[in-house]
């Protein structure tokens, strides 16, 4: 592929990935509804919502909310750019983490009980998933001897199966699914950190969240590589849908964990999974795997 093609591909991926996530959200709602014997909203409902929000009047408690929302979107967007440009996964990770800090600051900046409680809980979630996410990326780096996503050549699904399982746990938290919907907790916290956002600002935050989730899905796709482009693409898509479906099933069969248990459970099991995988690959299972 020439440089120009790569440029075009990076721009294309950055712009379409969040939209694809929006579509996946639609699939998510539809499938969840079916699991609960409902008809569910149309597939494109997340986009209808987004456009409707964009057209609404602007209401804020104070302007810094808006700045932090924009910061959130930009940092998640930049993270996605680096990933789409097949850059360094650690940079992707740190940029995306910076984005979630901005979401928290935005929620804190409104003096509102629900919003601030949501912010504290969002921080707890960060504490729960960031270490696991970081270690998953380190395990990829160890396995591939590089953190540059362009260099990924193995089928990590075979060599890092436990990291993949840990990544699904991260995905469940980022998608705010049960048992991890601590911050949004729609029954009592309304929508946690987002409660004081409305109209176009809510749309901004929502779009940023799509980008944030796109980053996780993007890293997920790195677990499948194939020299044949069509086979690679198909494999990656299967991986994405399989992961989404798994989170849906988990969402529907589990109840929310308490905050403390979320942190200890995710950290202990997530880290143990990745650790087991790294130890196996480095010390025990030499010669095993592809």
């Amino acid at each position, binding site marked *: 592929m020439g440089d120009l093609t790569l440029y075009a591909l990076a721009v294309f991926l950055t712009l379409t990935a969040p939209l694809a996530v929006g579509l996946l959200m639609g699939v998510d709602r539809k499938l969840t509804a079916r699991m609960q014997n409902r008809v569910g909203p149309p597939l494109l409902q997340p986009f209808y919502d987004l456009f409707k929000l964009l057209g609404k009047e602007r209401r804020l*408690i*104070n302007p810094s909310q808006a700045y932090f929302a*924009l*910061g959130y979107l*930009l940092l998640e967007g930049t993270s996605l750019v680096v990933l789409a440009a097949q850059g360094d996964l650690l940079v992707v990770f740190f940029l995306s983490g910076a984005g979630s800090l901005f979401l928290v600051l935005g929620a804190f*900046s409104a003096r509102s009980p629900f919003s601030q409680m949501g912010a504290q809980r969002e921080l707890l979630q960060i504490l729960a998933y960031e270490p696991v996410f970081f270690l998953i990326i380190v395990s990829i780096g160890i396995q591939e001897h590089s953190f540059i996503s*362009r260099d990924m050549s193995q089928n990590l699904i075979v060599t890092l199966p436990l990291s993949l399982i840990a990544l699904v746990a991260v995905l469940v938290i980022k998608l705010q699914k049960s048992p991890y919907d601590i911050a949004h907790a729609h029954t009592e916290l309304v929508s946690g950190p987002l409660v004081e956002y409305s109209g176009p600002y809510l749309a901004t935050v929502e779009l940023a969240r799509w980008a944030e989730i796109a980053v996780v899905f993007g890293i997920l796709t790195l677990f499948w590589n194939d020299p044949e482009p069509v086979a690679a693409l198909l494999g990656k898509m299967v991986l994405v849908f399989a992961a989404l479906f798994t989170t849906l099933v988990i969402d529907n069969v589990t109840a929310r964990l308490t905050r403390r248990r979320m942190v200890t459970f995710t950290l202990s099991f997530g880290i143990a999974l990745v650790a087991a995988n790294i130890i196996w690959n480095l010390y025990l299972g030499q010669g095993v795997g592809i």
Partner: protein
Amino acid sequence: MQRARSKVPCIDKLNLSAPPLPPLGIMELGGWLLLSLIIVPMIGGAACLGLGRVLRLKAGVIVTSSLTILLGLLLFGYMTWNGLASISMTAAEVAPFSEVMLVADFALMLVFLYSGYKERSALVVLFALAQLIPLTWFEFVLSGDLQEPVIMVDFLGVMMALITSIIGSIICIYAIKYMEHDAHQPRFFAVMLLFLGVMNGAVFSNDLLWFLVFWETTTVCSYLLIRHEGTADAIRSGLRALTYTLGGGVALVFAIILLYHYSGTTLLSQLPLGNAISGLALVPIGLFALAAFTKSAQLPFQKWLLGAMVAPTPVSALLHSSTMVNLGVYLLLRLSPSFSPIPELQYAVGLVGGVSFLATSVLAIGQSSSKKVLAYSTIGNLGLIVLCAAIGTKEAIYAGMLLLLFHAISKALLFMAVGVVKHETGSEDIEPMDGLRDKMPFVTFALFVGVITLLLPPFGMFASKWMISEISANYPLFAFLLAIGFGASVVYYGKWLGRTFSAGPMRARKSAIDQPLSSYFKWTLLALMAGAVGLSFLISQVVAYLIVPYLGPLHIDVLFVSGALGMFPMFALLVVIVVSLTALALLSGSGKAEITDAYTGGEPFVFANSGAYFFSEKTAGKAIILINAIAVLLLISLFLFPAMQEVGLWAI
């Protein structure tokens, strides 16, 4: 005057058998700059003692600080301009000072003895004697070589001197306002300025006996500054700091003597390489590391630095960013080739740093005092530098130096911002900072800049965190310590920063700021903000002019986000973020948005903020006992492995 013009400076390859040197009188500019960087702050400090009247004292501090900044920049400029990798001065050249140093050494010991006696601390007396007696004996045994480079500065030293001279001086200027109602200002500023000179002296010393004198003087300075306010708490904390760091001094004395015994040198530049020594010859290296841990407040010695928070905020800023704690990690960076090739020592030292980072990051979540949070964060970041020194590859030292530099700037900024809050509101706790941005928008912005430059891409600290993460792929054990630490630091800084930004509906906001910020506060904060952000922009220049002259070029240029699109410079990211934020903010015109009230389900409410601390003091206390035990085991292993190797029980 000796010059090493080698392109890649390597301390053990310096030409040590140079022709006879000119006497002091016709010393070259470089030598004068070194000496004046040590002496000018000291003279300024001594003068402060005499300048009783406030106005003259102010002028004295400002003049001395500005001169020190200027001299630091001149040294850097002189070495860069002339392409010098290092400057050194032999014992013959600085002969007039040797006697001074000897006297100072014994005077210091007497000061320690007296302090220990006066404060009724048997431990301090014991530690002082444990230094005095071996040192007296050693001075007789040691035969000095006049051609030895007693003073030597390379670019690691220059970087340290720049940090001390510039950031330290800015803190002194800041302190003029902060301490304006203090009863003992002359004494305070005398010690502050003395501290800068002593710190420069320590990083310029190549002879370990000189290094020891300066090292111990920093102990005295910190002791005097911590107990400055004279309250029972201050005196107790001061004594604790003295005990801990004096204990480290004992380790340093024995390290020097044993180093001379096993390797026949007292020069930092001739430290033996780790793969050239074995068995008990490794013991002095372990003792150096132990001394460094006490100075940098690594586990299990963290307690003295946390207690030091009772001191006035400028003191905290000085101890945490530009002096004192930096000296320990500086020593470890110098020492790295001596222990990093030996896996047992490498892991023992690295784990002390890594566990310090992990433990302090988690403990900081449970702290409600902003100064305590910052103290924990300092110990954690120094732990990262210790980890870098332990890994010891070129990339790791690179990361460690960057971390040291950018941490110093951002941490000084944060302490000074907290100091302003304390000065104006009387509190340094996090919860009362709720809505600080209404009351003190400028200070809140300074806090914001401090935190984001410390935490987030694309600022300087991030570059080194990124490098450490990248290196950790080769050391998976360390990666696990980093992972939780990174996550936890986002949490504790997020909570605090969020609190300061919390604000109610804009129309109900108090628009009045009680009084305009003192220009001392404003300009010093501004200078550090500009430094933190500006040097992040100029990170490639920082690397090219400060780090490459010390370490040589790095084969992978990790300061660039490499991707299929070619090289994507870090600062381009910064520009993109800043420009688009501004553009979007202008376009969206948030000012025109309608101001609304917080949603409460229609109920009237009174907002009472409360922080989430996740665990109790009691849980933290238990955890501290556990991690201290781990750290003690690691320290023991530093000496156990060499001893076992000596008697043939362990093959390193």
